C-alpha cells in the first residue's frame, strides 16, 4: 500500500498559532492540536453544541455544580491507558497558573476533581458557570505518566511539547522542523479507526499569500485564505472553497473615555454615515452579514432593531444637533486597528472617505498586535479614541461579555473601549447567569437590543472566513471556528486521492 500524505497550512490565519505546542498556553491553533490531543468535550462540526470526545458521556447536576464525565476506553500514543487520573492531573495543571496555563482564570471555579474509578471523573464547581463546558472543550487532556515528573514551574518550558508529546488523537507527533513544518504519523491504535493517510504535515507560512502560492503550486492541499485570495480559486475544479462564519463581529469602537463620543447622536451619526451594505457587497463580495448589534445569529437578534440605514444627510444633522463642531470639529481622530490585511485597509479607506463626507476626520493606523493591545490597555485615552476591531460573538454568545461589561474594564478584563452602560451591563449579567441553555436566547436578545439602542460601539458586520482545499482531499472537514476550534473534524477519515 502506498504512502499517503496530506500537507496543509493548518496554522495560517487567525485560527492558527504556529510554533505553539503546549495546549495549556494556546490561545488559538486548536484545529491542529486536535489532530493529536483531545479534550473531554468538543463542539460538533457545525459548532452548535458540545459533544463528548474523551468523555463518552457527561452529565451536569441539577444545581449546575457537579459535572460527571464517563471516559472512553483508549490508550495514549505510547501505549499507556487513558484514565481518570489523567483528567484530574490535566485539570489541576490547567488550573494552576504556575504551569503557565492561560486557563487558570477560566477554571478558577473548580472546587475539586474526584476520580471514583478509572473511567469516571467528577468535577465540582464552587459556583455555577455557564461557560464551563465551553472552556473544557479547549483543555486538551494530557498524560499524567509523562508530565508528572516535570516540576510544575518548568512545564511551560519543557521540550516535551515539541519533541515527544503524547496524546490520544488519531495522529502521533513525529517531528517538528523549527519554523518549517510539523509532521504527524497515523496512530494505528486510534479508537475511531486507523487514519486513512499515513502522514499529516502542517507547513508554516509567514504570510497568507505565500500559503496560497503553495496551494496553487500543488505543494499543499489546504490552507486558510484571505477572502480576496479565496476568490481566485472560484470556478477552479482543482480546488474547493470552504466558506464559514468567522464568529467575529467587527465594530468601530468608541473610546468612552476619550470625551468626544459621549453624545449618542454622534455615535448614531457615525453609523448612519457609513454605507455598510455597499461595503459588504463590493469589498466583501457579499460574504458578510450586516450587524446592528453584537450578534447576527437569528436566534439572538430580536425584532424591531433600529437598522441605521446609510443616510449621510441624517448623520450631518445629528452631528449638527450634537454640536460636533465644538466637540471635535475636523480635528484628525486616530483610528487604530490591528488588522494588517489588504482587505481591511480597503475597508477602512472606504469608511474614512464616508466619514469625511459628514465631517468626521479619521486617520487609520494599523499596528501590530502587541502594540495595539499595549495601547488600548493603557490609560492614554487620547491615543486611541477610535478603533476598528473584532470580538468573538459565538458560538457561545457570552463571548461578548468581556468586551462590554463594565466589570471588565482593564486591567480586570478586556472592555478596552471602557463601555460603562448600566443597562447593558445588567443585561449581560442576567444572560450570563442563566445556566439553562434553552432559556438563554431571549436574555441575549436583550443584550442585543441594548447594544442597538445605546451603541457602545458602532457594529459593522460579521464576515465570512475562507479555507481552500484541494479537490484531491476526501472527507476533509474544516470550518473557520474562532481560535481554530476545536470541533469534531475526524482527521482519521481525511483521505487524499493520488
Amino acid at each position, binding site marked *: 500500500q502506498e504512502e499517503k500524505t496530506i500537507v496543509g497550512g493548518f496554522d495560517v490565519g487567525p485560527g492558527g498559532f504556529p510554533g505553539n505546542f503546549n495546549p495549556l498556553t494556546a490561545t488559538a491553533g486548536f484545529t491542529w492540536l486536535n489532530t493529536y490531543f483531545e479534550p473531554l468535550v468538543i463542539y460538533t462540526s457545525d459548532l452548535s453544541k458540545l459533544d463528548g470526545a474523551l468523555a463518552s458521556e457527561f452529565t451536569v447536576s441539577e444545581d449546575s455544580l457537579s459535572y460527571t464525565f464517563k471516559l472512553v476506553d483508549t490508550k495514549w500514543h505510547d501505549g499507556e491507558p487513558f484514565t481518570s487520573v489523567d483528567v484530574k492531573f490535566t485539570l489541576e495543571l490547567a488550573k494552576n497558573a504556575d504551569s503557565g496555563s492561560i486557563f487558570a482564570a477560566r477554571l478558577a471555579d473548580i472546587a475539586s476533581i474526584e476520580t471514583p474509578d478509572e473511567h469516571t471523573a467528577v468535577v465540582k464547581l464552587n459556583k455555577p458557570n455557564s461557560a464551563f463546558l465551553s472552556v473544557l472543550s479547549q483543555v486538551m487532556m494530557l498524560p499524567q505518566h509523562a508530565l508528572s515528573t516535570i516540576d510544575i514551574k518548568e512545564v511551560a*518550558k519543557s521540550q516535551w511539547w515539541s519533541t515527544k508529546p503524547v496524546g490520544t488523537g488519531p495522529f502521533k507527533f513525529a517531528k517538528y522542523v523549527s519554523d518549517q513544518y510539523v509532521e504527524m504519523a497515523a496512530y494505528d491504535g486510534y479508537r475511531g479507526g486507523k487514519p486513512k493517510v499515513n502522514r499529516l504535515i502542517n507547513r508554516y507560512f509567514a504570510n497568507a499569500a505565500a500559503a496560497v502560492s503553495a496551494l496553487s503550486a500543488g505543494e499543499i492541499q489546504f490552507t486558510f485564505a484571505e477572502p480576496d485570495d479565496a476568490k481566485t480559486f472560484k470556478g477552479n475544479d482543482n480546488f474547493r472553497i470552504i466558506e464559514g462564519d468567522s464568529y467575529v463581529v467587527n465594530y468601530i469602537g468608541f473610546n468612552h473615555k476619550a470625551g468626544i463620543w459621549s453624545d449618542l447622536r454622534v455615535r448614531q451619526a457615525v453609523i448612519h454615515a457609513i454605507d455598510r451594505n455597499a461595503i459588504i457587497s463590493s469589498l466583501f463580495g457579499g460574504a458578510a452579514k450586516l450587524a446592528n448589534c453584537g450578534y447576527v445569529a437569528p436566534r439572538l437578534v430580536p425584532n424591531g432593531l433600529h437598522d441605521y440605514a446609510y443616510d449621510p444627510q441624517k448623520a450631518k444633522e445629528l452631528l449638527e444637533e450634537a454640536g460636533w463642531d465644538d466637540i471635535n470639529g475636523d480635528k484628525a481622530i486616530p483610528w487604530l486597528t490591528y488588522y494588517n490585511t489588504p482587505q481591511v485597509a480597503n475597508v477602512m479607506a472606504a469608511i474614512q472617505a464616508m466619514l469625511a463626507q459628514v465631517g468626521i476626520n479619521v486617520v487609520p493606523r494599523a499596528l501590530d498586535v502587541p502594540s495595539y493591545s499595549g495601547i488600548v490597555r493603557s490609560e492614554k485615552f487620547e491615543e486611541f479614541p477610535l478603533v476598528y476591531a473584532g470580538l468573538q460573538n459565538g458560538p457561545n454568545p457570552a463571548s461578548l461579555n468581556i468586551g462590554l461589561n463594565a466589570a471588565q474594564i482593564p486591567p480586570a478584563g478586556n472592555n478596552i473601549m471602557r463601555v460603562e452602560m448600566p443597562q447593558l451591563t445588567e443585561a449581560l449579567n442576567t444572560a450570563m447567569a442563566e445556566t439553562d441553555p434553552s432559556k438563554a436566547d431571549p436574555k441575549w436578545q436583550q443584550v442585543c437590543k441594548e447594544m442597538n439602542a445605546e451603541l457602545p460601539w458602532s457594529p459593522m458586520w460579521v464576515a465570512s472566513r475562507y479555507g481552500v482545499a484541494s479537490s484531491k482531499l476526501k472527507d476533509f472537514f474544516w470550518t473557520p471556528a474562532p*481560535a481554530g476550534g476545536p470541533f469534531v473534524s475526524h482527521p482519521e477519515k481525511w483521505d487524499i486521492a493520488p
Partner: protein
Amino acid sequence: MLQYILRRTVVGLLMLLALTVLIFTLLRLTPGDPIDAYINPSVPMSAADLVALRTRLGLDQPLPVQYFAWLGAAVTGDFGYSIQRGGEPVLPLVLGRIGPTILLMFSGLAISVVVGIAAGILAAVRRNQFADLSLSTAAFVGISSPAFLTALLGLYVFAVVLRWVPAGGMLTPGAPFSVGDLLAHLILPAALLSIGHGALIMRYMRSSLLEVLSQEYVRTARAKGVREFWVIVKHAVRNALLPVITVIGSTIGIAIGGAIFIESVFDWPGMGLLMINAVVRRDYPVIMCATLLTGACVILVNLLTDIAYAAVDPRIKVA
C-alpha cells in the same frame, strides 16, 4: 597579529554590550509586551492572571534589574526561553537559524560576487561601449527594484505559474533530506537575493577597475610586454578587488541580519524571519539573543574583512 585580534575582540565585546543595552531599552520603549502579543483579546482573563503571567516572565521588575538578570544569565551561556514558542530554549533556536541564513546568504552572495565581478570587469574594459552601457543599466534596474516585489513576482512566476521550483520553504516537508531538494528550494531565493548585491558589486568593481587601469603599474605591465588579457586579470583585477572586498564584507554584515523580504516571502527559516516574528510578537529573549548573535557575526565579519584585506594587500600590516 594576535594582539591585534585580541584588541579588536575586546572592542567588539564592548560594542556588543552596548548593543544589548540599546536593544533592551528600545524594546521596552515599544508599546505592548509579550503578554499583549500573546493573549487573544477574546479570552477572558483576570487581572490577577495577567499579573501572574508577567511575574512569571519577570516583566514586573524594574528595567535595570531585568537587564542585569538577563545579562547575568547570558554571560553564563543561558539565553533563556522563547516566550512565544512554548519555552523553546533560545540559544539552539537562534543557532539553528544561522545555518539556513548562511546557506541562503552565501549562495546569493556567491552568485552576486561571480556575476558582479565578471560584469564589472567587462563593463570597465569596454567602458562606455555597448556592453558597459547595457550592463550598467541592468545593474541600475537591479538596484532600483524593491526586493519584496521581485520576491513576490519571482515566487508567482517561477513557482506558481511555471512550477519550476517549489513555492517556498527550505525542504519538502516530510521528504527525507536530499541535497537536490535543498538546492531546488534554494535556487530562486538565492538568485533573487543576488540581484541587488550583484548589481552593487558590479558598480564597485567597475569603478575600482577603472581607477586601477589608469595606474602606472598597469602601464609598466604593458611596457613589459604582458598580454592584454593578463594585464587586466593579473595586474589590474587583483588590485581592483581590494575596495570590492570591503563592499562584499559589509554586504555580508548586512545579510547576516537576514534577507527579511526574501525570507518572509519564501518562508526561508533564516534569521530575518525569526527576527521579524520575534519582534512582532515581542519575544524578548529571542530578540536579544538573535541581535547579539548577528551583532557578533557582523563584528567578526568586519574583523575577517580587515584580515582578508591585509592578506590580499601586502601593504597593509595587521599587527
